[in-house]
């Protein structure tokens, strides 16, 4: 070996050695991550004189909060969390829990103490609740960071103030929360705050939405790429941004197609669309970005809902409620998973887990039925019909949970009814199991016309599927829509041409004949050549 070649050899060895070591270096010294933004609050609430306590009631805490946050009460009182009323910006119709019909529990009217355990206030016990008193605003439901603040299910939004046996006769004594400690540890709303109500809509965990349940408190990355600790680790309000206590995002008028895109500092601080953070062209491939013109992001990125191991209710049939067992007691039946499939209080249930959504065009208009609307009882009643079609430039295909229901209605007046289910009186359905009395009581209380003749009508309700976003590698694959299979995801969307699914049967038939003919002609011609050449051996 010459000196030069030796030197070269040595250099190669050195390079190889460095290359081999490179991965080890990477493991031992990971590249420095940029420091995560840490909120730096300027107030330590535990030091504040006003929050020393003790506090006897929720409103006492609120008064203390308002002594500094003097605009907060009136901001909250304008929000849907307080009013339970809103006007649909697209239809102009007055909606909110008080008016919009649903096929779950029914109406909060006449059932206030139970339903208003999820009201952002205290003491909405009946229709005479004072919506103008800011001291009734519940600050803690949203701002508790200790996880110890619980509004008790039956006390019109109040937490416990004295120890109580729950349920009655169980010997299980529940202690009231330490209001002073909670007040001293307030902060930004976290998942548990929002989830306490929004995960439990419809009367229990996972019941209502299908894409919102307690599995989102500590979800895996597969379940929710945004909320997983090893994902983006975001909380609800990171997207559902609040402006002066007004939440963004609405199921009465979800934004069907956000053409504005990124929500920058000088924008409206409404981030309740995917595009607010991801922009309008987030994919590397233009072809995929083009899909967003017709498809909501959620359509591909939420392949199934109720993926967190909790079943969501898919059917609720009120018409069978009220049965008693052989022992004369109200009947309750559970399936093998412990799900209640029959309840004397509520009727029959069906549940679904890992459910593929139903897809519909949506252009921003939801035709929500109010409890006072005249309905057509000759067919299945869609409580919130979703508007849109392929022709509509604002419409995109969105995923929905379609809730099947069967619920009481007034057969003569053709309206839905207010059913009085909760209360300690002799008309409440839960306890007396008599629709004749409970509907009459509900309608009288609501001061709505009622003929006295009720029946049950089959209903459907559409729930936007927009949470439980899966990681990109779990997104819906091309062939799940681009397929001739009748089981294709978009098989019910028939007003667009989908390559791979749609074709013209005449063109396919004639084209097939053309190809078969050209192959056949070749074969036939070749065969005749073989036969004639055999007969006439070459000289």
């Amino acid at each position, binding site marked *: 070996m010459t000196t030069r070649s030796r030197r070269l050899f040595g250099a190669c060895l050195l390079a190889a050695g460095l290359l081999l070591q490179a991965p080890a270096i990477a493991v031992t010294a990971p590249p420095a991550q940029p420091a995560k933004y840490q909120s730096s609050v300027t107030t330590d609430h535990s030091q504040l004189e006003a929050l020393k306590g003790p506090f006897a009631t929720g409103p006492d805490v609120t008064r203390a909060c308002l002594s500094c946050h003097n605009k907060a009460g009136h901001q909250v009182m304008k929000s849907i969390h307080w009013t339970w009323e809103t006007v649909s910006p697209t239809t102009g119709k007055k909606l909110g829990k008080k008016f919009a019909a649903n096929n779950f529990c029914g109406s909060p009217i006449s059932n206030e103490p139970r339903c208003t355990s999820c009201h952002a206030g205290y003491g909405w016990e009946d229709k005479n609740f004072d919506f103008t008193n800011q001291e009734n605003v519940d600050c803690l439901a949203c701002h508790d960071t200790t996880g110890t603040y619980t509004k008790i299910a039956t006390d019109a939004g109040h937490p416990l103030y004295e120890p109580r046996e729950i349920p009655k006769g169980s010997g299980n004594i529940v202690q009231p929360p330490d209001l002073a400690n909670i007040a001293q540890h307030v902060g930004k709303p976290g998942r548990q705050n929002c989830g306490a109500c929004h995960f439990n809509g419809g009367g229990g965990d996972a019941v209502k939405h299908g894409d919102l349940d307690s599995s989102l408190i500590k979800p895996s990355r597969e379940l929710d790429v945004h909320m997983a600790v090893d994902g983006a680790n975001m909380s609800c309000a990171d997207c559902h941004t609040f402006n002066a206590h007004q939440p963004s995002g609405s199921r009465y008028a979800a934004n069907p197609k956000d053409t504005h895109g990124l929500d920058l500092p000088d924008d409206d601080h409404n981030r309740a669309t995917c595009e607010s953070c991801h922009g309008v062209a987030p994919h590397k491939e233009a072809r995929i970005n083009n899909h967003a013109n017709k498809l909501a992001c959620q359509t591909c990125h939420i392949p199934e809902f109720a993926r967190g191991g909790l079943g969501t209710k898919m059917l609720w049939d009120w018409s069978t409620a009220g049965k008693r067992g052989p022992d004369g007691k109200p009947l309750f039946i559970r399936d093998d998973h412990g799900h209640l499939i029959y309840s004397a209080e509520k009727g029959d249930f069906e549940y679904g887990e890992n459910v593929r959504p139903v897809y519909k065009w949506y252009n921003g208009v939801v035709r929500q039925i109010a409890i006072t609307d005249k309905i057509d009882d000759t067919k299945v009643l869609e409580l919130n019909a979703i508007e849109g079609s392929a022709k509509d430039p604002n419409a995109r295909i969105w995923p929905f949970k379609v809730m099947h229901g069967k619920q009481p209605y007034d057969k003569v007046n053709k309206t839905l009814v207010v059913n009085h289910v909760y209360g300690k009186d002799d008309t409440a359905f839960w306890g007396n199991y008599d629709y004749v009395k409970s509907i009459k009581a509900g309608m009288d209380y609501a001061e709505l016309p009622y003929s006295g003749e009720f029946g049950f009508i089959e209903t459907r309700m559409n729930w936007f599927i927009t949470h439980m976003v899966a990681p990109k590698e779990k997104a819906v694959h*091309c062939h799940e829509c681009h397929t001739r299979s009748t089981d294709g995801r978009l098989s019910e969307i028939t007003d667009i041409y989908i390559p791979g699914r749609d074709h013209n049967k005449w*063109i396919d038939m004639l084209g097939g004949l053309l190809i078969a003919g050209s192959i056949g002609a070749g074969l036939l011609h070749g065969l005749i050549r073989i036969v*004639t050449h055999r007969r006439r051996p070459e000289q």
Partner: protein
Amino acid sequence: MSTGRIYIYKRYERFWHWSQAALIIVMMITGFEIHGSYDLMGFGKAVNIHTIAAWTLLVLWAFTIFWQFTTGEWRQYMPSMKNVLAMVHYYTIGIFTNSPHPFHKTARHKHNPLQRLAYLALLAFISPLIWVSGLLYLFYGNWGQLGLAQYLSLESVALAHTIGAFMITAFFFIHVYLTTTGHTVFAHIKAMITGWEESDQA
């Protein structure tokens, strides 16, 4: 009987022909998968391969058109009705009765009159149909910006492309069959590989 060899297909021509053949075969296979005729590699993959193959063929065509004009080879596609009937007669009768081929290939006249007509039809009708519909299909997402959205529907473009696909596939099979009609079954294919046509009538 003497045999002779003439050099008919130049190196670029052979490269062009076979790469074009490979690309068209790939596009037929992936194209009919995209159409939903069968499930082979999955829709998404088929679309990607089909698209890459299409762009590759467009580049190949750019070079080939340049080549055709700089070498004057484009004249090979000029149609002539002369001797067409003789070709028809040969394919329908003569070939079975062992009659001699009415056309003699030379480097200046590579294609028989029927071939010229067929290739011209391919160039003038099927290719534009496929390329125009294919490019429109590919740029579906940009119709709005291009001001085309009001004149086109995805369905009509897709169906036009499908019609073109059926035609070129039929062409492919006939073309492959006709390669076997040389003086031996593989004579034409051999010539297209080596460039040299062996002739029993030289």
